[in-house]
């Protein structure tokens, strides 16, 4: 003990930081801020430390070469002792980091912490969100598998839509004309040097301002922020009702960070590392690329936006959102801080959260994607074939062979790109079915050229059997008026 004190004193005589550190650690904070709501920033910081440590460990083995990266990930997963666990820690750490940064942001908005004088702290925080997402995307690319390869292609397709400069941006992003070795090398440089450097710098500024300006006081309804009086009020509050940050508030941060680290370790241990999925071989086209969790909402949005809206939404949307976030503290820099008096803030967060949640949820079963192998691997449910005529069964065959099942579900099996056809005969008459099959429309391709008349006849005969028991088939009301000519198609009505 004596020795440690002596060494400590010797060091501090030369470094001369002890007093400053002690003063910083023990600076008074408003009593109510020693709260479980004020632990997310420090937790994000601790997870970032974990990412640095596990990232350096991965770099000991990982080979940032398009030809070798995938193999080196296999080595990490299977040959290096606990390599899989370090990969899993890094992967789950990234998911937790994005999540905690988002929660931190929501807390800051709800508590009005971005208001005067903490505008710059908030703006740097927005930049921290951006670089955190940048780390998540570039990290996904370093897991150089099929998803990464085609994900880069999607990135290139989006970047190429920038007016005039699009093609140049694509070349700069890919490091050449196409996704190849140079692409992975530059994403490695971004993920390991450039973005972490920015992240460390932004974190330093962010933290410095938290210490200089003081932590946001607990918002009270009626305690209104005014530029003229805020600083005086805040200092009075900390003087009157302050407690030293260390140890009175920090113990909650410590417990929460520890709990988060433990959760990451548990997820890593239980669920294991992310991928890699198939080799990044573009000639293997039997693949359905998917982004990582925090970009799934974008994946959903891109399939649900009307085509004409896409390019504006992709290019203008992010800029608008970014500027809205950066300008937030200048537009709403004063006034109430309490969420109880700020219904629009609460509502905005709810709308954004519900939208992102819904899009992410939809991405779980991608109703907009055809099920590429439904035609060959998802049979028609037997109840749809029982007691059917030869022609109708032939039609069922056409339904499978012509890949109708890829987009249309029967008994909830198959694609959901188009409507389910379990009761199509209730909705469409014989003639309407023929027209829809041959001409398509309503987001369905026209099959006119790809079906022989015999195939069309059989297919429509099968479709006409698709109605729930007890529900009548769709009727052409004009049939009763004009005598129906013999159409040649066999009647399937009972």
């Amino acid at each position, binding site marked *: 003990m004596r020795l440690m004190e002596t060494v400590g004193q010797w060091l501090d005589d030369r470094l001369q930081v002890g007093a400053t550190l002690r003063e910083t650690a023990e600076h008074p904070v408003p009593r109510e801020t020693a709260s479980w709501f004020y632990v997310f920033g420090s937790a994000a910081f601790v997870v970032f430390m974990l990412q640095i440590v596990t990232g350096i460990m991965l770099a000991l083995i990982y080979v940032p070469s398009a030809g070798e990266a995938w193999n080196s990930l296999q080595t990490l997963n299977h040959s290096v002792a606990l390599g899989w666990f370090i990969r899993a820690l890094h992967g789950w750490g990234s998911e937790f980091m994005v999540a905690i940064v988002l929660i931190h942001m929501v807390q800051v908005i709800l508590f009005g912490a971005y208001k005067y004088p903490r505008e710059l702290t908030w703006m740097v925080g927005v930049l921290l969100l951006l670089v955190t997402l940048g780390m998540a995307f570039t990290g996904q690319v370093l897991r150089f598998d099929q998803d990464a390869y*085609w994900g880069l292609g999607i990135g*290139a397709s989006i970047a190429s839509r920038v007016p005039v400069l*699009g*093609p140049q941006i694509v070349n*700069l992003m890919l490091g050449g004309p196409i996704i190849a070795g140079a692409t992975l090398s530059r994403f490695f440089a971004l993920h390991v040097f450039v973005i972490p450097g920015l992240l460390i710098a932004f974190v330093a500024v962010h933290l410095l301002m938290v210490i200089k300006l003081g932590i946001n006081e607990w918002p009270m309804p009626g305690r209104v922020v005014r530029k003229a009086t805020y600083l005086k009020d805040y200092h009075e509050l900390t003087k009157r009702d302050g407690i030293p940050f260390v140890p009175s508030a920090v113990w909650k941060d410590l417990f929460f960070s520890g709990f988060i680290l433990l959760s990451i370790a548990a997820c890593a241990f239980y669920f294991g590392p992310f991928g890699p999925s198939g080799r990044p071989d573009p000639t293997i086209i039997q693949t359905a690329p998917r982004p990582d969790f925090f970009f799934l909402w974008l994946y959903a949005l*891109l399939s649900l936006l009307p085509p004409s809206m896409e390019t504006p939404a992709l290019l203008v949307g992010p800029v608008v959102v970014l500027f809205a976030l950066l300008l937030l503290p200048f537009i709403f820099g004063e006034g109430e801080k309490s969420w109880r008096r700020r219904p629009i803030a609460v509502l905005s967060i709810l709308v954004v959260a519900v939208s992102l949640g819904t899009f992410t949820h939809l991405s779980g079963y991608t109703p907009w994607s055809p099920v590429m192998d439904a035609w060959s691997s998802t049979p028609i449910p037997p109840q749809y074939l029982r007691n059917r005529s030869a022609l109708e069964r032939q039609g069922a065959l056409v339904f499978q062979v012509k*890949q109708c099942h890829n987009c249309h579900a029967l008994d909830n099996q198959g694609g959901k790109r188009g409507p389910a056809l379990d009761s199509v005969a209730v909705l469409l008459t014989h003639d309407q079915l023929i027209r829809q099959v041959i001409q398509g429309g309503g987001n369905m391709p026209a099959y006119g050229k790809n079906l022989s008349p015999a195939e069309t006849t059989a297919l429509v005969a099968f479709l006409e059997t698709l109605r729930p028991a007890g529900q009548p088939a769709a009727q052409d009301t004009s049939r009763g008026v004009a005598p129906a000519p013999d159409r040649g198609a066999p009647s399937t009505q009972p």
Partner: protein
Amino acid sequence: MTLPEGLKRRDFLMKMGLLFNGIVAAILAVPIVRYLMSPVARARKGHYDSWLSLGKLREFPVGQTRLAIYQNPVVNPWDGDTADIPCWVRNVDGQQFQVFAINCAHLGCPVRWFPQSSLFMCPCHGGVYYQDGSRASGPPERGLFQYHHKVENGELFIKAGEIPTPGSAANIISITPGLPRCV
């Protein structure tokens, strides 16, 4: 405020020092920027596309659409699997060919050919194209990207190299909807 003579001189020297460093930085910036911008340098960009063989014509039977693979014209030894790029070749009638990029015109995912229904389908967001590459349904705003091609000595060549994207389709034929599609 007037500075004493010695300080004034040193202040001037400091400013000159800053200026000197600024000039050196500007000189160094030239190679650095050129290095960073090399992927779009005119000298290099002009050579991204070149004529590449997809193989003998007999590998592409009349009336069928087949997957063909070519190697990137700009290739490094460490490109690994990414050096090989697939594309779809359609032999229309033995005389006419169409060579489609593998990349969906929406966001670049790999489209798959279904000969039974004569459709290309994209697994990502559900873009669908007819056999002539024109858009059938889904989010794409246009048909599949088509490479320029030529036949020489019984071999099919395409002009390729750059990744086909919605914005960089300048070197790529755009498909006007309809080689007439009978209904």
